[in-house]
């Protein structure tokens, strides 16, 4: 159970935390989550021959697949992380961020970056082909040919400037703190540096400075670092913040927290080339990446042990406390996906599963099953505190959880299994169509798993809208008089 009265310290907190800003980031994130899910659904329907919108240029599944991934990475995850950071950093450091107006400027600028990315990817190629003045441009208005970095080249400098401002804004309060920092702040500090460096390296070097195999090596580093050095440290940093608060006890072992952070910091950046095994990238570099990847799994194990040992004695919270259930389900998926990673990164597995849906299953498990689920848990916990209103329907919160977690489990299992089939079809030298036809059952199951996930989010959107309406109605009441906060858990 969450001690709801203690969680409400309106006066002190409101000076530190700009609740409207946090809520705005979360709502923006959810809008992009919706867009990303619809885009994914379009691609899923295309693969099973059910796409009702065939042959429409602006709805081309090829372009919308890029919207699917970019909307989740830069629209949902980045926005939701920024919202959560605006809650966690001032409360951890007991200092506000550098400037409130800068924060709102960053908010607006980031929405511009993400929307411009989407427009560039979808409308850019059409404009360029049909407007004579644009036809002879040497550079493309549309996507950049870099996975997870499809942001058109003309937006990259803006995005990078935005990341710099984010770092400055949050580092101001953190740098004023004295003495040893809490675990969360290690992850955040490092993430600000890493995200900036990763974005610059990945978006500029392979485009302007390098071609071919070495560009491939940098591309691999970029793909991996984006997950490992932007999403992962922010995600774990938030877990180290929210889990002890919700369980009302410290982490089990500070030593393991140290091992987890420094192990990740050292080994994670060395993994990138494992995305391109068996390419012409020198073999000794591929071996190095594989060994570092297995090392990361060892580190991950220590983190998982630390969190589950912290839960020990409070296991009942999994049932009663919905945010904690979101967090720990995400951690179970994290352990699974990391175990999967330790296997798939070996050359033995790669020979079979590279280029198959196995990898697609892995990506969904990481991006949705782990980090999106954690952020959904954080939102479930925070929205009532941001709007000083309990959830409209705790039952819909449960539906949101079960459809998301269940849909994800089915989708990941289905795609991973489908990937094994595809790998064997290819190795058998059967005609290519055999592998496509053989994938159909898996792709059809994926459509329904996707529908479950989409349904879960619709429950959440509706619940959120109704809660917001109630908060407007309650608006005039003083905070102390507001109904008890929180979800079904409370």
């Amino acid at each position, binding site marked *: 159970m969450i001690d709801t009265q203690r969680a409400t310290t309106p006066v002190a907190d409101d000076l530190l935390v700009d609740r409207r800003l946090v809520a705005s980031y979360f709502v923006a994130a959810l809008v992009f989550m919706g867009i990303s899910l619809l885009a994914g659904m379009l691609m899923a329907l295309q693969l099973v021959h059910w796409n009702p919108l065939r042959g429409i240029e602006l709805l081309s599944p090829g372009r919308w697949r890029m919207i699917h991934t970019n909307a989740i990475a830069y629209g949902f995850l980045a926005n939701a992380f920024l919202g959560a950071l605006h809650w966690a950093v001032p409360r951890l450091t007991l200092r506000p961020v550098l400037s409130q107006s800068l924060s709102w400027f960053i908010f607006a600028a980031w929405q511009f970056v993400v929307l411009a990315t989407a427009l560039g990817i979808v409308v850019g190629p059409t404009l360029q082909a049909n407007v004579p003045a644009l036809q002879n441009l040497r550079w493309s208005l549309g996507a950049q040919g870099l996975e997870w970095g499809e942001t058109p080249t003309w937006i990259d400098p803006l995005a990078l400037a935005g990341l710099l401002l984010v770092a400055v804004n949050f580092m101001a309060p953190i740098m004023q703190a004295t003495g040893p920092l809490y675990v969360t702040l290690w992850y955040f500090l490092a993430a600000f540096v890493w995200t900036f460096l990763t974005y610059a390296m990945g978006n500029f070097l392979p485009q302007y400075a390098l*071609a071919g195999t070495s560009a491939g090596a940098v591309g691999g580093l970029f793909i991996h670092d984006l997950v490992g050095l932007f999403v992962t440290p922010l995600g774990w940093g938030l877990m180290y913040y929210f889990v002890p608060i919700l369980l009302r006890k410290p982490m089990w072992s500070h030593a393991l927290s140290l091992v987890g952070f420094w192990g990740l910091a050292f080994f994670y950046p060395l993994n990138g080339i494992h995305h391109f095994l068996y390419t*012409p990238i020198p073999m000794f570099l591929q071996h190095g990446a594989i060994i570092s990847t297995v090392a990361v799994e060892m580190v991950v194990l220590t983190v998982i042990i630390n969190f589950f040992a912290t839960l020990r004695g409070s296991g009942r919270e999994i049932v009663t406390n919905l945010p904690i259930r979101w967090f720990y389900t995400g951690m179970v998926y994290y352990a699974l996906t990391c175990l999967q990673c330790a296997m798939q990164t070996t050359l033995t597995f790669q020979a079979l599963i590279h280029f198959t849906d196995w990898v697609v299953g892995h990506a969904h498990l990481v991006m949705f099953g782990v980090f999106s689920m954690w952020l959904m848990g954080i939102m479930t916990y925070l929205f009532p505190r941001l709007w000083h209103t309990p959830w409209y329907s705790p039952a819909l919160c449960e539906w949101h959880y079960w459809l998301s977690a269940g849909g994800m489990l089915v989708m990941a299992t289905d795609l991973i299994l489908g990937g094994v089939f595809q790998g064997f079809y*290819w190795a058998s030298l059967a005609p290519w169509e055999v592998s496509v036809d053989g994938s159909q059952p898996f792709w059809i199951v994926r459509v329904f798993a996707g529908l479950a996930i989409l349904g879960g989010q619709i429950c959440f959107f509706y619940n959120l809208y109704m809660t917001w309406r109630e908060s407007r109605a309650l608006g005039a009441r003083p905070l102390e008089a507001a109904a008890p906060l929180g979800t079904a858990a409370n």
Partner: protein
Amino acid sequence: MFEGKSGVLLVGGLGFFAFAFLSNAVVPMLMYRDLPEQTTAELVAKNSNLMYQFEELSYRYPEQFKQHFGEPTTDQCAEALRLGRQIYVSEGCWHCHSQFVRPVSREEDRWGPVSATWEYQNELQRPVMFGTRRVGPDLCREGGRRSNDWHAAHFYRPKLTSAASPMPEYPWLFDGAPDKPNRRGLALITYVQWLGSWLESYPDYEAYQPLAERLKEK
């Protein structure tokens, strides 16, 4: 150091990142620094396989070709290649088609020689198009395997040529009919025919003869 700002920022943030960048990115850069990066013009200049296909396009779709590219010169071919690559990237082709043959899983038997570094040292591999997923087959040995009009029909409606294909349709690469590829369509076909055209084993290889001479013989 382990829990303080300077340690986290300098050692973890900058130091480990720099170490990874040096060992994983700078090392291959240094290893391949002697392998020159070819421009698109250089790629076209010595590539008679590609010029053969480009001229075939001008012969097969004369009106369209005249309107969009004029004459099948090497300059126009380089232009078509650059645009073709742009379409390949912006339409997301590279998310369902890879461009490298691995030395495992009997890929040599299916597609041809294993990919080598020198094949990627050129302007059109910026960023490199290794790819990430194969819903459709690998394309780095695709050039010359099928005719230009096969590709035209296939881009217009993939099921016309491959019944099981879940590939989307691209009617906007045409002026209303599969035998009328527009500028983008012609460019994309040129790009696909280029893939692998630098190899001895280009399947549709014929001794290159400029178009004017070939027509005279007929």
